[in-house]
């Protein structure tokens, strides 16, 4: 599907100039195709997750009953939970519910899934949102600086740190942060994000510090490298040379002329980083006991709570889609701009 759309863009790029109305229609067509692609992707994701949960040994009934799970009791509870119905009926019911905005009922505790995931999802988006709000400007600054001071100690430091950070999983980065700033070397930040009932994560900036830092380190070290490369390319262009000859200050060249042009290459990567950040909260939340949907997802897998697993995976998949969609729109916009 992506290849088709890419081809369309290429065709768009090379096509003879059309009237503005025709261009708008064509743009809407591309956007429409992307939306259809997104819906199909989400459907396939939900199907894959559903099938994967069926392959997992055990079901919600065996987990709930524990070692008291005699065959009779498992059968009775499975029937009560609707797990004895044919697979296609179970999936169809779930899908029908989704189309009506109903994510179903948790098999583990009988609550509506929407109600169950509302607060954890909000908490996860807060964590990921703050992290990304730090990642983006910090990556731009570091990337631009590294490009400006290419091959100096600063550049080498950025590249070296980037290699190390990219090689370390979030779990290791977070554990190191806890060791350094939470429990052992310094006691600067709470090592665990306990959010009491009736409060919100943003009420406790100190508790957010290390989970955010865990996500930020990985994100910045990846994105700043891309910014650096992109800015280096732009700095080598003729118009930058011209600007230098005109005597424009270096800072103005970097941030007013070079950076905006470098962004077109960076935005798709930034969108991906944003998506990864939402995905990455699963591990980070687990490590810091942050009450988000990542922890809920892991527990739901343990409990074989299929409707909750489905809902969370769909949310994460939808976030991936949205950010990719934004990146694509920017790209389409670029094509229009070029034309």
């Amino acid at each position: 599907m992506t290849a088709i759309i890419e081809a369309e863009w290429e065709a768009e790029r090379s096509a003879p100039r059309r009237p503005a109305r025709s261009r708008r229609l064509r743009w809407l067509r591309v956007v429409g195709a992307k939306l259809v692609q997104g819906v199909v992707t989400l459907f396939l994701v939900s199907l894959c997750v559903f099938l994967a949960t069926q392959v997992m040994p055990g079901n919600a009934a065996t987990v709930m009953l524990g070692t008291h799970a005699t065959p009779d009791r498992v059968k009775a509870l499975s029937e009560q939970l609707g797990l004895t119905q044919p697979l296609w009926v179970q999936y169809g019911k779930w899908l029908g519910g989704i189309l009506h905005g109903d994510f179903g009922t948790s098999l583990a505790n009988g609550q509506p899934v929407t109600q169950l995931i509302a607060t954890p999802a909000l908490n996860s988006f807060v964590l990921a949102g703050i992290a990304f709000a730090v990642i983006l400007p910090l990556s731009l600054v570091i990337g631009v600086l590294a490009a400006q001071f290419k091959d100096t100690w600063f550049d080498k430091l950025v590249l070296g740190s980037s290699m190390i950070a990219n090689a370390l999983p979030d779990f290791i980065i977070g554990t190191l942060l806890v060791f350094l700033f939470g429990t052992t070397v310094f006691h600067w930040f709470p090592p665990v994000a306990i959010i009491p009932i009736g409060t919100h994560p943003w009420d406790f900036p100190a508790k957010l510090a290390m989970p955010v830092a865990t996500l930020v380190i990985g994100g910045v070290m990846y994105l700043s490298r891309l910014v650096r490369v992109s800015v280096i390319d732009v700095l080598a262009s003729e118009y930058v040379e011209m600007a230098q000859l005109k005597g424009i200050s270096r800072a103005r060249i970097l941030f007013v002329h070079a950076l905006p042009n470098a962004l077109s290459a960076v935005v798709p990567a930034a969108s991906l980083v944003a998506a990864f950040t939402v995905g990455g909260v699963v591990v980070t939340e687990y490590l810091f006991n942050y009450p988000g949907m990542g922890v809920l997802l892991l527990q739901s897998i343990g409990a074989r709570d299929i409707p909750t697993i489905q809902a969370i995976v769909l949310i994460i998949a939808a976030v991936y889609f949205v950010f990719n969609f934004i990146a694509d729109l920017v790209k389409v916009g670029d094509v229009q701009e070029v034309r």
Partner: protein
Amino acid sequence: MSAQRRVARKLLAIAAGVAMAAGLAACSGGSTGTTTTSADGTLNMGLVGSVNDKVDPYASQTTVGEGAIWQNMYDLLTYLDGNGKLQMGLAESFDHNADNTVWTVHLRPDVKLHDGGTFGADDVLFSIKRMFALKDSYGAITQISDFVDPNGVTKIDDHTVRFTLKEPYGVFPNAWSYPQLYMTGKDWTEQNPDGTGPFTMKKFAPNQQATLEKFDGYWGRKPGFKTLNIYFFSDQQAIVNALQGGQIDLTNAVPLANVDTLKASGIEFLKSDSTTHLSLDMRTDIPPFNNPKVRQAMELIVDRPAVVKTAYNGYAKVGNDYDVDASCSAPDLPQRAQDLNQAKQLLAAAGQSHLTVDLVTDGAFQGMLETAQLLSQDAAQIGVTINVKKMDTGSLLDKWLKWPFVVNIVTTDYLSGVPDHSLPAGQDNAAHWNNAQFNTLATKLFNTTDQKEQCSIVQQMQTLQHNDAPSIIPAYPEDLTPHSSRVHGLQTNRFGQTYSTLGGVTVD
């Protein structure tokens, strides 16, 4: 200074300023990391919890966090004290007929319910009715369903209940000490969970937090603080970090590898002997373990002191292949020790010199995976292959009672544990052990009311379990309860309930 360097210096100065401001802002947001508690008498506890946790004591218990809530909101008719001695709870006394088929329970008078009423016979009837009504999902009912007929429970007066049993049962008062057979008020609902325990529920969000407040009308020993916050965790390591960072004061246990680190950072540990132990159950009804020689060989393969040292960091006693009874002295048995030569001979005699088996575990409790791996290494020395298979709990439960060789855990007292772990119909009898002599002794045990006689029977049963070898019990771990120096008055408990038994506990 070149233009390039000037730009660099300016930009670096901005970046440094931003970083410093961010650092200061974060520090000012609460650098101590502690939750505000001490002055108002609040105890912050951290326990593993789950989104499935409920305030309904008749739900299937999934986490230790849920268990702590129930223990502090509700009471039992009887309970076992920290030394394993039976004590009266909501019941004041029991009478029975000659053949132990009719039991009369006299309830403690003047026990207040959280909603202001007085606990009585109607509440007992309501509770028992609910336990049996939820029989499809309420696992603990199996502890009493063999002998209690819910239709045979009648109210004699406001504080007297009569049980007409399906069959004679001599240890009826002990049965009600099982830590899930709680009594609730007759007006109990999920939204208004009425009980008689030392705390009332104020706020509860599964997998996040429960806030309980001291119940001033409690009939028993009251806690010496007002508020109990239980914070729920998904991961033991996060609990360790929270303890070390001063965010919680008390938990039930930590991975033993962390004990020294925590001690170095000021965390104290209260050590108790414990009846909880691992049991590596071998299916006695199918090959190769239906041959007693093979089972005996396996028990001679394991290096018990190594298990104590490696799997429990020394916080355990060497096990001797029988379940422990806290209220009776140990049987007079020789300590089983590693003897690889004899094990080899036994396997050769059984035609299993090159035995290959899978040993499954979910590694959910301290020592499970380590013990399995140590056994595997020991077995390899005599050509026996034990493949340790680690899986998640859902997968383990999917084939529960079907695994030929599994790492099981026994957490209850002896009288509650025997029907589950060692009798043919037991749902925890992963060894499928069915020893006629043992079963006869069990029937005798459950039909006697004389405690001295009970202990004599228990020792005979333990001897039979040791000799017939359905399970390898390589160690009897100790229970280490970690707590901050703010917490005082915790009592040792042989059933792993030091952390949740809060009568008399105070907080600085």
